């Protein structure tokens, strides 16, 4: 287990370094830089030179990259040019916002998708299961880009929910947490709807297979109530395939949140990355890309551990490699 974890950590570290370095170099190579973007074409040559020197843009790419890398090892990721704040302060703030959104969406999707999947999977026919199945198919064809446009449209027409941002300009009497929750509903639902549909389909599929297994029949034959068999016994066995695709789910959450963040103006990592790219704010670009890689690497690792938790076979084979978890 330890060795396995160490290998995963090493790969994650490599991923983060590679992704942030690549985006740093790419953003640096791009035509135009922060100074030309922000000062415009009217600026004098001296002003441009002075600003370039201030941000270290007058050095060669190799020298600048070396300086950035050397600082990054000491956990100093440079200073964002457009915000004039250290990248190290800026990123955790925005990453936390993305994490709130992703976590809320994951909880919502699980709470809705899994029970529905158990219902549809444990009964082959009937009006309710087939309705759920069709709804899932429709929702699967609506990626977060489309769900968020649809939800924003509905919210703007009815005025039920705020359509943009994370907080109201003035904190209402109800309190900051409630205000945040109010703003969270729309973007979280936009990511959660297709995700819930996916979970429903997966869970239903796993359930259909498990319901036919001898141990379920045996329990039923012994007179254990059907609901107990389904919701206790079969559910446990059917969770494994769902946990198996959790890493895909993490990817969905993460990339889905980009479109949603942009459309609903959620101040998360995706929005920050977009701004940084537009302004050619290279330190911030590298920081955002690295943070994104950490997100994904961490997510895949958690999902692998979750798989080991629900499937004893997975952890047995792994515990041979080292000490038990």
């Amino acid at each position, binding site marked *: 287990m330890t060795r396995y974890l160490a290998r995963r950590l090493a790969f994650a570290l490599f991923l983060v370094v590679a992704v942030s370095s690549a985006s740093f170099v790419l953003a640096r190579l791009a035509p135009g830089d922060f100074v030309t973007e922000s000062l415009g074409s009217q600026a004098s040559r001296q002003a441009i030179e002075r600003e370039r020197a201030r941000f270290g843009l007058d050095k060669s790419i190799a020298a600048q990259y070396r300086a950035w890398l050397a600082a990054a090892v000491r956990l100093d990721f440079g200073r964002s040019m457009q915000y004039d704040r250290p990248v190290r302060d800026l990123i955790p703030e925005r990453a936390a916002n993305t994490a709130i959104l992703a976590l809320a969406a994951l909880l919502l999707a699980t709470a809705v998708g899994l029970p529905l999947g158990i219902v549809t999977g444990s009964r082959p026919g009937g009006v309710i299961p087939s309705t759920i199945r069709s709804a899932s198919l429709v929702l699967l064809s609506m990626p*977060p880009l489309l769900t968020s446009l649809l939800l924003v449209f509905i919210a703007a027409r009815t005025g039920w929910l705020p359509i943009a941002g994370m907080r109201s300009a003035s904190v209402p009497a109800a309190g900051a947490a409630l205000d945040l929750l109010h703003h969270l509903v729309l973007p979280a639902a936009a990511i959660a709807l297709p995700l819930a549909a*996916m979970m429903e389909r997966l869970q239903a*599929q796993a359930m259909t297979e498990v319901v036919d297994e001898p141990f379920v029949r045996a329990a039923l034959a012994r007179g254990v109530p059907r609901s107990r068999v389904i919701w206790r016994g079969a559910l446990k066995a059917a969770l494994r395939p769902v946990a198996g695709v959790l890493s895909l789910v993490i990817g969905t959450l993460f990339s889905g949140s980009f479109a949603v963040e942009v*459309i609903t103006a959620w101040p998360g990592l995706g929005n920050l990355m*977009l701004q940084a790219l537009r302004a050619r704010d290279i330190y911030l670009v590298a920081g955002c890309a690295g943070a994104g890689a950490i997100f994904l*690497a961490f997510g895949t690792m958690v999902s692998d551990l979750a798989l080991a938790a629900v499937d004893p076979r997975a952890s047995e084979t792994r515990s041979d490699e080292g000490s038990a978890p």
Partner: protein
Amino acid sequence: MTRMLGTALVAIGVTAAAAAPVLAPHAPDERFAGMLDAPPTLPHIVGDDGSWHAPFVYRWRLVNQLEQQYEEDRSQRVPLAWLSQGHVVQSADEANAPLLLLGADSFGRDVFTRLMFGARISLGLAATAALGAVLAGTLLGGLAGYAGGALDDVLMRATDFVMVLPAMYVALALRAVLPLVLTPSEVFFLLAGIFAVVGAPFVARGVRAIVRTERRLEYAVAAEALGATGARLLLRHLLPAARGFVAVEVTLLVPAFIVAEATLSYVGLGFPDPIASWGTMLHDASTNIRVFADFPWLLSPAVAMFLVVLGLNLVLQGDRSAATFAPEALRRTSS
């Protein structure tokens, strides 16, 4: 049944794209000056007095310049002109009462026309990128599966790496490092290339697995014993075994690429403005999201996207039993 419905939806999209210049009433960049954000002109067949007529439309009259509110001018019926000037249908009085089946955008351009021309870009790009991803993926996967050993290791580690990358961020970063102003055809091939690179590993992994299993089967061993060269064995015997898998991959990749183009164009890193694609049409409204609420017909590219993606999903569902639902479908659609 599901499969037929799906095929029909996809076929409608492809037909609209192919026959856009004829089917669409206008040119995609034609602006109607007095028609900014005009609502759809619905064809009527019953007049105000209850009498029946050949299909006609009413003219929009601007009643509020500031809020862009229009009112139907019911005093006069404008008949539709069929098969005139190289278009299937137009209104008889194009200058004053253009036929706007899905309304007009903020530049006074016909949304219905742009939707059809947009299908050319959006569907064409997705299809080109999917083709590229399939070609590259099949080649790499086939090589890795056939050769095995070190080459296999290197190629598979590389696909692992690309697959865990945050795909949307990669596309964003790659697009953003290139000059913002490019000609539309440059953007087209650039995006197709980026999408193909991001999509190819998914194909490569599957093809590799299939080639590895097939290689050990008697027919492949027999062909090898008969002196078939590696290339012949691969192209003639092993890769055809992956046909079914590749077909499924295409139906998964195309929706993903349609949505990816829309996302990039929506944030302004896709096609430049006068070009109609489903993403740029949404981008027009992205500065103020509330315009979608006031002028809902501007959302029609989103509806078109949904219908095509749904069509492809239905084809996939009908193709394979519901039991073999592919979870990657969603991930890729959203990435």
